[in-house]
């Protein structure tokens, strides 16, 4: 991961460059702790009796970067002093230009309504820290700035790890997992993923695909939310970690496994609906309370099954799908079209 070069920030966008005097860098202060401080908020450590690997991990490092379940994620990014100071500098930097100001306005509005049923975000420090993270990202990657959906991903990462870790994980997810194309103006990546999703549905759930098409429901209507939020709008905060761990290892192939697993479990119910409204009522719920999350999960349960998100993710992982096809389609899409 490239970082530590503050000059990167100078390149804002093609036509907007920031006058140098507006950038205030205080590298000397770069290792001061951030206020308010953030620590993982999840329940993972309480639920699990600390595993041996985690104990070793604790011994090796002075401070764990996140919860027991986020070890795999933690290995994805190495946090050195350079990363810490760069994040700090991003926080200190003041930028005044149209693109950044727009992003900043939207972030201010959105942090107010991100997971506001959870006290840490509605009353605690979560709101301030999430805002700090998103603003830092808008400065780090001005071409993307801020797009709705990032707030949910960032909040989910923040829930399980430390602030600096969550920030660099966000950067890594967007850079290394091709989320950039998803968030760019016009959503070029979304088109690509909808194309793959169509393919997957035709191949594995043809009856469902036909039913959806007949009622005028485009894959895009489902994919936009699931793609842009990486399922964080579907999976409750505590359980997002199961998805991230596998996603980082198996990349988009795993995304499609979860996509198919969820839709396969809902297939029967969806096919019984005979209006677009009824179908969308099942697929897109406004999941902002625990109760709605649980309802959604129970709708996916098979007879005599007690489903949890952890189990669902495991089932999804065991699915066999045509991985070569997904990789080919994702890699070649722009060449084909």
């Amino acid at each position, binding site marked *: 991961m490239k970082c530590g070069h503050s000059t990167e920030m100078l390149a804002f966008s093609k036509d907007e460059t920031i006058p140098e005097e507006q950038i205030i860098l205080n590298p000397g202060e770069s290792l001061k702790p951030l206020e308010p401080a953030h620590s993982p908020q999840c329940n993972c450590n309480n639920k699990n009796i600390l595993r041996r690997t985690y104990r070793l991990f604790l011994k090796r490092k002075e401070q764990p970067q996140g919860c027991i379940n986020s070890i795999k994620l933690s290995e994805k990014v190495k946090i050195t002093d350079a990363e810490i100071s760069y994040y700090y500098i991003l926080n200190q930097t003041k930028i005044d230009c149209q693109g950044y100001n727009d992003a900043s306005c*939207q972030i201010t509005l*959105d942090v107010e309504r991100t997971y506001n049923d959870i006290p840490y975000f509605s009353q605690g420090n979560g709101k301030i820290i999430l805002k700090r993270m998103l603003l830092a990202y808008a400065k780090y990657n001005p071409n993307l700035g801020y797009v*709705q959906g990032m707030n949910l991903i960032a909040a989910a990462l923040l829930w399980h790890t430390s602030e600096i870790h969550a920030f660099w994980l966000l950067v890594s997810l967007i850079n290394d997992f091709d989320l950039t194309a998803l968030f760019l103006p016009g959503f070029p990546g979304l088109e690509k993923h909808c194309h793959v999703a169509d393919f997957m549905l035709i191949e594995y759930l043809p009856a469902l695909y036909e039913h959806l098409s007949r009622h005028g429901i485009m894959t895009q209507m489902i994919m936009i939310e699931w793609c842009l939020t990486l399922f964080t709008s579907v999976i409750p905060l505590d359980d997002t970690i199961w998805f991230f761990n596998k996603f980082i290892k198996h990349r988009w192939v795993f995304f499609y496994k979860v996509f198919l697993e969820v839709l396969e479990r809902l297939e029967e119910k969806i096919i019984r609906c005979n209006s677009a*409204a009824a179908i969308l009522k099942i697929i897109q719920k*406004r999941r*902002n309370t625990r109760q709605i999350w649980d309802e959604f999960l129970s709708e996916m349960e098979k007879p005599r099954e007690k489903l949890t998100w952890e189990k669902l993710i495991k089932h999804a992982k065991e699915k066999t799908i045509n991985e070569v096809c997904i990789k080919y389609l994702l890699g070649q899409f722009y060449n084909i079209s």
Partner: protein
Amino acid sequence: MEVDREFKIVTLGEGRVGKTSLAMRYVRGQFNEKEQSTTNANFLEKNIRINETSIKLNIWDTAGQERFRALAPNYYREAKGALLVYDITDKESFWKVVSWVEELKMQADKDISFVIAGNKCDLELDRQIPKEQAIAYAKQIGAAHYSTSAKSGMGVNECFEEIAKLILDKESRSGSPIRSSKARSRVIVKNQEEVVKKKKSGGCC
């Protein structure tokens, strides 16, 4: 309940002006001070009755962030009505409405009906857009203007029902088929044969 007509309606406007809150207030009667931001378009439906015609409104509540504008055509395609929402305490959001109207006139269904809603009227003290200006603009483009507040519920039912009325009016004026008594009489004038057929099939003997 038997449904005579089904209308597709979209809500459009800048982010956080209260599109989702208005739609949720109208359909579910709920208000959530901190409604989550919309990335996906939400789909809501409501059955209403206007002049003895029962109507099902299919409401597509779209995402407001500028970036998502590229996807809006998917939702306003074939829509019969649009609820354009602005926040009375935010000047910019009104200009967004103006630009939406321009876009819809070019891209959307020719017969699309507009209703403009000046939302957040409970914050009258912070008003930045004079009501007269908004009403004058609405008149100019042939739309209705409503002052609404998703928080108090003021004007919410009225603005959605106005859209339904406007669509019904437009349809009856253009003479496209509608299963209401008024429209049926129009058909009689146009096509005698059809009436004869209808009478035959409708007869009890």
